[in-house]
């Protein structure tokens, strides 16, 4: 019989079972409290990021303004067309419409439309009008998002300096790269809630995080000077059938670059367009190399042998060291023998006996070699380094090339002699311009730059950029002497084609033979500044491989002359011999010394 033996110990045990179970439930409840209260934030954040799909909204990129506020780089609204696989209802219609409107091949569109992915971009940078038309079809699963495209109102103007941006709003070359962090802004996001398959949950709505527009960049470039310099360079390129012509205009007192021209320029609105006559069927790598060549900024990225313009540096070093005075006498028989080498002057007959000023006016090689040898290898090398020629200038453009120079221990007298008149080593044009500026501005090595200020959309300046200045490169006295010598070079010497009526201009010409010697390829250049007594503007013109006459004095100096004829009045620079000009000059010098 099974009944009646449900005794006390059974009851106790059943009670134990119950309390053990209840106890376990309480423990689990405690665990739940831990999960729901202490871990809730952690898990709900993870869950939210799992549930939300984000689409980013491009931020409007900051504009680039010239020194007078003219817009050099702007944005225009364009559209990005994407397809969402899981939402498409009529696949064939979508393919047909997108092919027609976007002018794409059916194969390309079909591949995108039939790809199983959360969202597939079909085409970006679509014109707003086309985007609006596609939107009007109201096709399910086709998304038209508006965003911004970089737009350069002056097409190719200052292309290599300004640079352009890529599809993701990032700078590719030029100022667009260097000031990317200021210009790019913060992209916004549209967060939509979706299920595990990526289908939007309509009731959940969407969260928007608005994009923050980038800051405008004000640069020191002057549109008018840049345009005029571009015209002059293009003219020289055509008439001299040169490979390229570069012009850089700078304020030698503070390093603000007013213009930077490298013709041929390229169209910033179509930077990937290859020039006419390019052979078909280039590989991706070849195309990229070609484009890199087109985008190259010769003033910054390439080095050359400066030639006679470098005599300015040798002369300044000699004056500073006291190795030469204006009265020092040099004799030139048309050549000079250094160790076992005979180095010719460009005037085969020789310049005869001349004082130092005339040696510079004549651009006499033996005289400058003599001076270099007087300084000695170490002495000369010390000045080379003190002038900052071994360092980069720090210009706010990407890819500045370094100086290619003999090592101190490898220098012999022959090397010293060639360096003294600007051969056997290479520097960039911007390096030469900066070094000459520091010699004529009272001895302050300034940093060449474009960037002035970052400005928000309301016009408030959020940041003013400052650049390092190194004082005491040369003494004020040496600086004044050099200004005098260089003014003489232009007024009566080899640089007389750089003379500008009514202004006191200083400068130096150069004609450098490119390597290998004897190829018949030359670089004609001229560096000039005005007013001579208190330089407010300095310009360098470099004509690469001119045909016919190739002397710097005849090819490059006229370019700077024409430039100065126009921009000196425009900049409000006082004319020559003006009493006020002298006073100003003295004031300027005093400032420089302070």
């Amino acid at each position: 019989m099974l009944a009646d033996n449900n005794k006390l110990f059974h009851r106790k045990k059943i009670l134990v079972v119950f309390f053990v179970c209840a106890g376990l439930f309480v423990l689990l409840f405690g665990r739940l409290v831990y999960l729901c209260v202490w871990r809730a934030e952690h898990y709900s954040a993870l869950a939210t990021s799992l549930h939300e799909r984000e689409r980013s909204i491009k931020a409007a990129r900051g504009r680039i303004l010239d020194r007078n506020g003219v817009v050099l780089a702007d944005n225009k609204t364009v559209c990005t067309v994407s397809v969402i696989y899981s939402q498409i209802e009529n696949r064939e219609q979508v393919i047909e419409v997108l092919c027609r409107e976007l002018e794409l091949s059916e194969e390309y569109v079909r591949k995108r439309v039939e790809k199983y992915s959360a969202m597939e971009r079909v085409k970006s940078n679509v014109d707003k009008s086309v985007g609006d038309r596609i939107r009007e079809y109201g096709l399910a699963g086709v998304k038209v998002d508006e965003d911004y495209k970089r737009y350069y109102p002056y097409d190719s103007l200052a292309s290599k300096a300004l640079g352009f941006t890529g599809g993701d709003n990032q700078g590719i070359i030029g100022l667009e790269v260097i000031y990317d962090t200021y210009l790019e802004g913060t992209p916004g996001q549209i967060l939509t809630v979706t299920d595990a398959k990526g289908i939007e949950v309509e009731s959940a709505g969407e969260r928007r995080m608005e994009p923050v527009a980038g800051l405008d960049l004000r640069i020191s470039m002057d549109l008018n000077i840049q345009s005029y310099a571009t015209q002059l360079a293009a003219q020289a390129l055509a008439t001299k059938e040169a490979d390229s012509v570069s012009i850089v205009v700078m304020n030698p007192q503070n390093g603000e670059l007013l213009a930077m021209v490298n013709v041929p320029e390229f169209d910033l609105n179509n930077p990937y367009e290859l020039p006419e006559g390019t052979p078909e069927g280039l590989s991706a790598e070849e195309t990229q190399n070609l484009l890199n060549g087109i985008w190259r900024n010769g003033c910054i990225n390439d080095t050359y042998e400066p030639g006679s313009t470098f005599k300015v540096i040798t002369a300044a070093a000699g004056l500073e060291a006291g190795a030469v005075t204006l009265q020092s006498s040099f004799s030139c028989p048309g050549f000079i023998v250094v160790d076992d080498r005979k180095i010719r002057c460009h005037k085969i007959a020789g310049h005869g006996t001349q004082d130092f000023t005339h040696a510079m006016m004549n651009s006499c090689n033996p005289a400058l070699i003599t001076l270099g040898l007087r300084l000695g290898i170490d002495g000369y090398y010390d000045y080379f380094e003190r002038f900052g020629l071994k360092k980069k200038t720090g210009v706010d453009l990407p890819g500045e090339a370094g100086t290619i120079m003999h090592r101190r221990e490898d220098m012999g007298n022959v090397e010293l002699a060639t360096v003294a008149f600007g051969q056997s080593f290479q520097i960039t044009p911007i390096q030469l311009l900066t070094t000459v500026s520091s010699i004529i501005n009272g001895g302050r090595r300034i940093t060449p730059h474009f960037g002035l200020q970052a400005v928000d959309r309301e016009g408030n300046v959020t940041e003013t950029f400052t650049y390092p200045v190194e004082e005491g490169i040369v003494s004020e006295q040496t600086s004044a002497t050099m200004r005098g010598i260089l003014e003489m070079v232009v007024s009566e010497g080899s640089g007389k084609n750089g003379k500008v009526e009514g202004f006191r201009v200083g400068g130096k010409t150069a004609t450098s033979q490119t390597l290998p010697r004897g190829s018949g390829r030359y670089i004609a250049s001229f560096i000039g500044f005005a007013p001579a007594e208190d330089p407010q503007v300095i310009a360098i013109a470099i004509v690469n491989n001119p045909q016919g006459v190739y002397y710097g004095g005849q090819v490059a100096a006229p370019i700077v002359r024409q430039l100065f004829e126009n921009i000196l009045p425009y900049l409000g620079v006082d004319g020559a011999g003006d009493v006020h000009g002298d006073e100003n000059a003295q004031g300027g010098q005093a400032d420089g010394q302070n």
Partner: protein
Amino acid sequence: MKRGVEQEYTEPGTEKQAGRHRKGMAAHRTARRKKKEQSEYFFDYSLLFVVLFLLGFGLVMIYSASSYTAFDSFGDTAYFLKKQLTAIIIGLVLMIVVANIPYHFWEHFYLLGYIVSALMIPLVLTPLGIASHGARRWIGIPNTGLNLQPAEVAKLGMILFLAVLVCKMGKSIRTMKGFAVMVAFPMPIVLEVYFLTSNLSSAIIILGISVLMVFVASPDYKKFVAMGLAVAAVAGLVVYLVVSGSDFFAFRGSRIQAWLDPESDPLDKGFQTLQGLYAIGSGGIWGKGLGQSMQKLNFLPESQNDMIFSIICEELGLFGAIAIILMFIMLLWRMMVIANNAPDLFGAMLVVGVMGHIGIQAILNIAVVTNTIPNTGISLPFISYGGSSVMFLLIEIGLVLSVAKRIQLKEI
């Protein structure tokens, strides 16, 4: 001291009972019933209410958790709801029938139940077997379209078998031999379930029910405390071996790894656990509101089934979870009361078995969902989607109600 007294008191009784023949039993019962004909019999409305509440709540949650995926897969948001409702209706009918049959009627089928269980499990390997979710655990009943999980039959069969066995063994259960017999009988079924259907959780539940029934039947505590400690020690050792990088436990090992740190393997072994934790965590204290779960949108696998508790937490928060846990505690309490007042040991043991089944399963399910123990597929009794599970649970409740009906109100 007290226990000694109690044993002295009970011993003669059990000895006598066990010695008697079964025919005498029926006569005795008729006499008892006649004697108490006029007095009121007990019907446990509280228990019925709790069960109906859990079923109703389960239906709401199944609809909420499954409607999205149901529409996705079957084009009908109520697909799972309808199937579950059908099973519940059949189950309730079976429950009423069983509740009205005197429970001693089933005594005759204890061996049959055991044999049927043992024979049914291998059927999953025959063409009758149906594979789903990567495991063969179901058999299709020909011409009905209904599926049956033999493990559910085995749970019920084991409860009945052990309840009868306990009564038959009487005092001998206290000996080591008796204990060994009690533990030995369920083992073939447990091993069958584990190896033939690779259903670890059902094996654990059947083993748990058996141990619990033996525990209640035997007056001893020491053996069980020692057993509990041994199990804890083995579990600790396994965890230690897995953590220390032994590759001896390749499959279960990665499961344990995923348990200790589900975020270490968020896309594979830790996936379901982590998705469940996302749901619980994002529900917080107050929940997102009924129907507002995000995790049920295909993120959480088995959201209407094993993981339904995490959807409850996500939608109804900590308070929804408390409600469910309280309901289960109340259910166990009612069954305890019935077992303690059962007219005889057989009735008590039946109720203890059912109580163990529901208790173990609910605790393990919530423990899995909250990542308190390694993940293994266990459904939440009465609430999770699953037709055969709910039908057999309702039959078990029918048994409990039948036992309750034999309780005289005076005796409480």
